[in-house]
């Protein structure tokens, strides 16, 4: 028998970036709020303090900040012909765990999408015609425009504390910024960070080639900073421990550094950790939710938590799983195209070149997760899709981000993987290699989707979610194009040795090596209830008092790291709740 607790105005599922944003903005409205977090509590002090956090084995390799597959995971297959097998140990992607979620262990790469990426189907149709859209690609427009989201991107960047230089300030192109970005209403909250040696070599080569380099937009403080909630950040010291770690310096933007301490002081906000939401409960008519049922780890019992509004702000994959288990929409069927939940799961298409310079000193441990110089010369709004034969693009970046030697040991091809040759190789090459990365778009396809697994269950007896995913030719062609443009640029830098790593046609998805945690889609935004799971305000079409945050809303993935769009959408959704929904709860579309 489930325990039942007192009703709240709002229950928040998952206390990462978007749960923290919803928490503080709705708490400021005076609402009584409870946030339920599946994982543990964690704060800068004591959990991330120096030197304990500077531990590659514990956090970088054993992944102690991440979701434990023993508690929650998915099954994976590359096509409907394969039997899905559990993702038993983490590899390809690393969902976070605990307070702060993935916002605690990210790299800090904060981007806005290009305006064209939010209306990509229309952009393609206007310029080349719909006939260039490959069969099986679910190319769509977001039901919200860049201009509508711009104030919310700006606000999120102020909260998160982003460093960079505007390249397009109210339409004026500015030297040193990204000339191909969408317009900004204001300059960045903090100036760009300094440029490391590898980045400066890359910048010189780009300038010589006629490209347009700029310092990466970083959720890493370049100066002392106070955000709109009164939270303080200090300048980064390039310790080189961002991704997979909590920041010991109050320099990396995260829910901890940007929101949580301000939120915890509010008397009408409460959060509970080790509280895993099992399902959203629907009213008898199925048109609203009555609250959520969660597993209270300390009490070892199920709890029904009634609430007027439910905010789903767990990781994208976990949001979709909860929605499938709760009947918050109809499961997508790739054969008939009916249903919406699990539709348009997308990922990221990445590649890169490694350059070895025997006599150069790169000090690879001096860096941060968002370090680097970038170019957008081969990005979505610069590519002629009709001539190139694909839809998409990528940004390039070069900058040291960690020199942690268990995982970051680039060696020239042909170096043995063990024995005397390996030992000689690490002594010769550590510190003398740099890289250029291509971070590319990933479209949505009819056959890449999420549903419930027929075989495997979690510790609560719930079916695991099943991911059906493989690389598709359109994105692989895009990747090969980036290779064809990056290799000549890398060669112009005259390395002693260089080698490329770009997936090509026929590549199969391999769950073992880390690729990215930009898992998007599954509860996508849409103009109509037939096409997606949530409307333009990220309100579920099924139950008007349930709102879904995060990258699960993405119609298809952009070429950028998702956090900027996730943060902007979260403020956009919260604004709709505050100004339209609270006074008159109803479907907003």
């Amino acid at each position, binding site marked *: 028998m489930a325990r039942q607790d007192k009703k709240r105005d709002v229950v928040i599922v998952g206390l990462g970036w978007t749960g923290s944003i919803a928490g503080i903005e709705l708490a400021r409205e005076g609402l009584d709020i409870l946030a339920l977090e599946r994982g543990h509590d964690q704060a800068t002090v004591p959990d991330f303090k120096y*030197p304990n956090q500077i531990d590659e084995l514990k956090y970088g390799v054993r992944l102690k900040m991440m979701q434990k597959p023993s508690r929650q995971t998915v099954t994976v297959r590359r096509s409907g012909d394969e039997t899905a097998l559990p993702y038993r140990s983490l590899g390809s992607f690393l969902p976070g765990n605990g307070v702060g979620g993935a916002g605690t262990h990210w790299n800090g790469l904060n981007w806005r999408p290009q305006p064209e990426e939010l209306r990509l189907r229309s952009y393609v149709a206007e310029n080349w015609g719909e006939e260039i859209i490959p069969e099986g690609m679910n190319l769509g427009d977001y039901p919200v425009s860049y201009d509508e989201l711009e104030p919310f991107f700006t606000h999120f960047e102020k909260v998160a504390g982003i460093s960079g230089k505007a390249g397009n300030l109210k339409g004026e192109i500015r030297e040193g910024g990204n000339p191909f970005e969408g317009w900004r209403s204001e300059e960045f909250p903090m100036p760009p960070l300094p440029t490391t040696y590898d980045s400066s070599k890359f910048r010189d080569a780009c300038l010589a080639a006629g490209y347009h380099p700029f310092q990466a937009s970083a959720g890493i403080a370049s100066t002392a900073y106070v955000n709109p909630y009164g939270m303080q950040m200090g300048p980064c010291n*390039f*310790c080189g421990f961002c991704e997979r770690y909590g920041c010991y310096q*109050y320099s990396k933007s995260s829910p901890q550094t940007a929101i949580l301490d301000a939120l915890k002081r509010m008397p009408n906000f409460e959060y509970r950790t080790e509280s895993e939401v099992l399902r959203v409960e629907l009213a008898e008519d199925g048109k609203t939710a009555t609250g959520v049922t969660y597993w209270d780890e300390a009490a070892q019992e199920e709890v029904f938590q009634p609430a007027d509004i439910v905010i789903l702000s767990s990781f994208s994959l976990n949001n979709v799983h909860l929605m499938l288990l709760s009947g918050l929409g109809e499961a997508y069927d790739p054969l008939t195209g009916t249903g919406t939940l699990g539709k348009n799961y997308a990922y990221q298409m990445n590649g890169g070149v490694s350059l070895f310079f025997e006599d150069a000193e790169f000090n690879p*441990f001096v860096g941060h997760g968002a370090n680097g110089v970038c170019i957008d010369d081969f990005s979505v709004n610069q590519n002629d899709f009709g001539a190139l034969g694909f839809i998409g693009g990528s940004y390039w970046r070069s900058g040291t981000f960690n020199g942690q030697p268990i995982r970051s040991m680039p060696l020239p091809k042909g170096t043995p993987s*063990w024995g005397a040759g390996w030992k000689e190789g690490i002594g010769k090459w550590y510190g003398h290699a740099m890289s250029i990365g291509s971070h590319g778009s990933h479209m949505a396809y009819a056959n890449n989707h999420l549903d419930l697994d027929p075989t495997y269950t979690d510790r609560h007896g719930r079916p695991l979610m099943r991911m059906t995913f493989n690389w598709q030719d359109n994105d692989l062609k895009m990747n090969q194009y980036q290779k064809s443009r990056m290799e000549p640029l890398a060669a112009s830098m005259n390395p002693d040795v260089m080698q490329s790593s770009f997936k090509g046609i026929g590549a199969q998805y391999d769950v073992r090596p880390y690729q990215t945690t930009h898992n998007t889609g599954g509860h996508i935004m849409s103009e109509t209830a037939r096409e997606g799971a949530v409307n333009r305000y990220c309100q579920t079409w099924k139950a008007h008092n349930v709102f879904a945050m995060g990258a699960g809303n993405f119609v298809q993935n952009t070429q950028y790291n998702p956090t900027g769009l996730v943060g902007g959408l979260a403020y956009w959704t919260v604004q709709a709740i505050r100004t339209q929904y609270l006074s008159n709860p109803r479907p907003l579309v």
Partner: protein
Amino acid sequence: MTDLPGYPSRRGFLKVSAAGLALSGVALDAKAQDAQPPVPLDRYEPEYLTADEWAFVMAATARLIPSEGDGPGAIEARVPVFIDLQLAGDYGTADDWYMVGPHDAEAAPDRGWQTPLTPAGLYREAIPAFDAWCAETHGAAFAALDGQAQDAALTALQKGEVPLAPELSPFFATLLANTKEGYFADPMYGGNHGMQSWVYIGFPGARAAFREWPERHNVKYPLGPVSIKGERA
């Protein structure tokens, strides 16, 4: 403390936090560590590995990262101790992993870890199976072979040419990964003894403060490593 680069600026920022207290312990810890040499490997009493397994891990890691040439070998770095302690802990028992069946141990490698065995269980079952193959093929258990035969046997294992049960297929990749982990992890986990591996490649360990270094281009960072417990090398 004067040899810590960037320390004054960091102290200013962290002076009220627990991190500042941790830093002040550096010198004391270093002295305490220097006073206690570790147990020699031939007298080490493993937490998890049996005597035969220990002999195998000693011999195999000594070939994966040999002692000859520049830089420490796995033996000098005490990698076998690291592996023993890892297998005795929650990595060995796969506590964080989803280990519910059914298992398809014959799945292709790119489907990830699909054996029903935990890492500790994998070592326990794979070592005698590999030793039996070594005895049949090379005339003795792995640890008793000469270096050249050991290299040939490990090469065959890596290439999948040793006929092992499908559940044992991740063994070589796991052994090699664990060996490199033990070579480069913080010394508090039992390997990377004296931070020799970090000294060899030029990684400064847990220094993690390089405020003035981003714009010192093409200048080699001069300071040796520190460990999480405050040892220096």
